[in-house]
């Protein structure tokens, strides 16, 4: 390669590397703001904002979904397998909302430590399979237990 | 599976079909557009060539 081309190649590699480095530092500095939600443990430990609304993410505990009345009000527990928090929500739940599934909810904690939600979004996982396969996995798992 | 079941997609029909429909329309348009542009360009160039030869 001729020297001038080598120089240009080197210059471009240096430029891209410098930008990558700068962006990496910036992203690291704003890491907290880039998190879409707080985990349950963070919320219980008081890391989540107290006075304002924030997003809380976790798994819906199996068997915890309760509807006290005829209306759209629902109570359920969220967990990250370390701590758990009770969520109270009135409104239409997304189609994927079910026990054992991940959700992200916007709202605020009240003085009793119950999360009063304005919005509930379902977070689906990266697994895709037909119902029969899911069923057989379930049976295999329960036999193993 | 019946045809109406296929269209209905367990109730998600309008989500599924609008996704596939919009994708198809955009992809087809994106093929036609450069072909038309090239034909138009060729026509323009040949016209300006004709004009130039007449002037000479």
């Amino acid at each position, binding site marked *: 390669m001729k020297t001038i081309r080598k120089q*240009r*190649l080197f210059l*471009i590699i240096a*430029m*891209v590397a410098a*930008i990558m480095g700068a*962006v990496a530092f910036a*992203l690291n500095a704003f*890491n907290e703001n*880039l998190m*879409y*939600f707080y985990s349950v443990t963070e919320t219980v430990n008081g890391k989540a904002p107290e006075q304002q609304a924030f997003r809380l*993410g976790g798994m819906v505990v199996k068997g915890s979904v309760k509807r006290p009345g005829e209306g759209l009000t629902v109570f359920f527990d969220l967990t990250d397998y370390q701590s758990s928090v009770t969520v109270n929500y009135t409104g239409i739940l*997304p*189609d*994927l*909302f*079910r026990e054992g*599934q991940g959700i992200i909810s916007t709202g605020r904690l009240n003085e009793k430590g119950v999360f009063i939600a304005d*919005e509930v*979004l*379902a*977070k*689906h*996982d*990266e*697994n*895709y*399979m*037909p*119902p*029969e*396969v*899911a069923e057989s996995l379930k049976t295999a798992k329960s036999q193993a237990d | 599976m019946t045809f109406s079941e*296929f269209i209905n*997609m*367990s*109730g*998600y029909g309008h*989500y*599924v079909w*609008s*996704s*596939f429909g*919009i*994708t198809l329309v*955009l*992809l087809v348009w*994106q*093929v036609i557009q*450069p*072909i038309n*542009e*090239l034909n138009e*360009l*060729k*026509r323009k*160039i*040949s016209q300006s*060539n004709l004009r130039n030869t007449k002037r000479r």
Partner: protein
Amino acid sequence: MNPVMKWIHLLGSPPYFYRFSGKLLPWLSVLCIILFVWGLYGGLVQAPADYQQSDAFRIIYVHVPSAWMSLFVYVTMAVAGAIGIIWHVKMAEIVCVTSAPIGAVFTFLALLTGSIWGKPMWGTWWVWDARLTSELILLFLYFGVMALYRAIEDKRMAARAVAILALVGLVNIPIIHYSVEWWSTLHQGPTVTKFDKPSMDASMLIPLLVMALAFQLYYCIVLLLRMRTELVNRERNSKWVNDLVSP
């Protein structure tokens, strides 16, 4: 020079490239249509419904290939731009500038179909999480490249400016890919492109890979079509273009 290098040099000649791509295009088109029909039939008819998402998961067959291509086209554009700057290869410059609108369409489709999928599944059309936001920035990068190319009169200068912008924007590509692992997002983690076995049943995965291949081939076809148009436009005063248009 060995024959392969000789042929690559030959492809750098506009009239040869124009003739060669003209011969190649019908074959590519037939292959692409076959793959699309196979992938669509597999995805819409053969693949079973998902155990959680039922038939709504079928949007994956247009969403995921579009999203993959939005990243692939960007990398191609930036690499071609770099080759154009370093070695002054005209064809690489043209690959760079003609890829931008194609990439923009793929990015737009990924965002739109993702939004249509998100409404019934997540419960919202849009959230400002790291994955969705970085993909939106990608769309604006493509728009920026297209606008910059149009704004500069001298097309060789324009191609150089565009290549620099594309290279700067390259930093966004790993951010998009790893956003779901680095930060907590509403968007789920990778299914196919992780190091483990893909967490997708084979009956669903095969149509997805066929669709991905179809999209790849489709990109090649549209790229060739756009390159031909760009070449004729740039070389409108040359002899080969005159021979081409004269009846």
